[in-house]
């Protein structure tokens, strides 16, 4: 399976190039245009990524991150969740940049191919920043009464995290 997944990205790139060429798209020019857009979105990311990396650096160095993990460890062992992942799991629905910073902290300390690293990856890839999304979507259309949406989104988010644990246990 791991072998198959290495083919997904190159395969997709080849498919997109062939598909675009067959539709008469200027492939190279579109690529270059996208590169320009990508570069500016990386620059846009910089301030919040920088801020949250500093915060996570402080969180780890102060020892608070380990303390928090130990505090919730009984619940963790019940859920089969490594306690190192607790801060990451808590911040994921709230902030994208903060979860990016915490995930890279996990990769750095435990390795990207460790169970911890893989579980963090699966949670990262299969859940969203719930609070942010709900706020943006309803804020933009001026709706005050959002009814059951936040509750449902959060329940789905927790479901996603539990499914990540189950799937990772079977898959890796």
């Amino acid at each position: 399976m791991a072998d198959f997944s290495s083919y997904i990205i190159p395969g997709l790139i080849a498919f997109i190039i062939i598909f675009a060429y067959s539709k008469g798209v200027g492939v190279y020019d579109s690529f270059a245009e996208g590169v320009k857009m990508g570069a500016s979105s990386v620059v846009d990311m910089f301030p919040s990524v920088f801020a949250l990396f500093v915060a996570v650096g402080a969180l780890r160095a102060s020892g608070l991150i380990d303390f928090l993990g130990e505090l919730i460890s009984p619940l963790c062992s019940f859920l089969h969740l490594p306690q190192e992942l607790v801060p990451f799991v808590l911040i994921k629905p709230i902030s994208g940049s903060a979860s990016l910073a915490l995930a890279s902290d996990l990769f750095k300390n435990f390795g990207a191919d460790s169970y911890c690293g893989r579980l963090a990856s699966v949670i990262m890839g299969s859940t969203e920043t719930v609070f942010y999304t709900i706020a943006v979507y309803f804020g933009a259309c001026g709706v005050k009464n959002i009814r059951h949406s936040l509750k449902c989104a959060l329940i789905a988010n927790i479901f996603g995290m539990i499914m990540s644990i189950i799937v990772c246990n079977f898959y890796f």
Partner: protein
Amino acid sequence: MLNIVWIFIMLASVVYAFFTGRAAELCTGMFSGAEDSISFLVKIGSFMVLWQGILNVADKSSLSESFSKILSPIICRVFNKVKKGSLELGLIANNLTANILGLSNAATPLGISAMKELAKSSKDGRATDDMCLLAVINSSSLQLIPSTLIAMRTSFGSEVPGDIIVPIWLVSSLTAVFAVLICRFSQRSERDGRL
């Protein structure tokens, strides 16, 4: 939101470090965090730029339109009041397609336009069933290729950075189905509660 999160993490760390006598470590930690963020962005940034280039090629080739067409019948089934050939159907289809292809810059504006279109049938600032459903679907992850994540794993020395793709597909599709089901269940119980 980020404001509160940042303030909380910073202050809590400082207070905790003072109590445990780790002020020196705290300083080093913050500086190495700052340093890490630069190397992080250089490594991840280069992959993001590459991927954005490829996605732009896909976007120009009307791949999104073909994809939206496949999604439309499913959307009509899932959303109660969205009719075939309507403006909101097109917007929702494009929003979900952009999410699936990972065009996050395009996805949010499309989703917001779809919400505004749906909001036309809402009363007194109260969200309709379909608006709730669209917001909930958007707050679950639909991305086919988690490109930033793969770049991160590569830069931290993963030997098989893509081996998380299949589990992610499994989990995110189950979660999306679950999100739709729980949303519909809540609609129904809310309505029954009022009767």
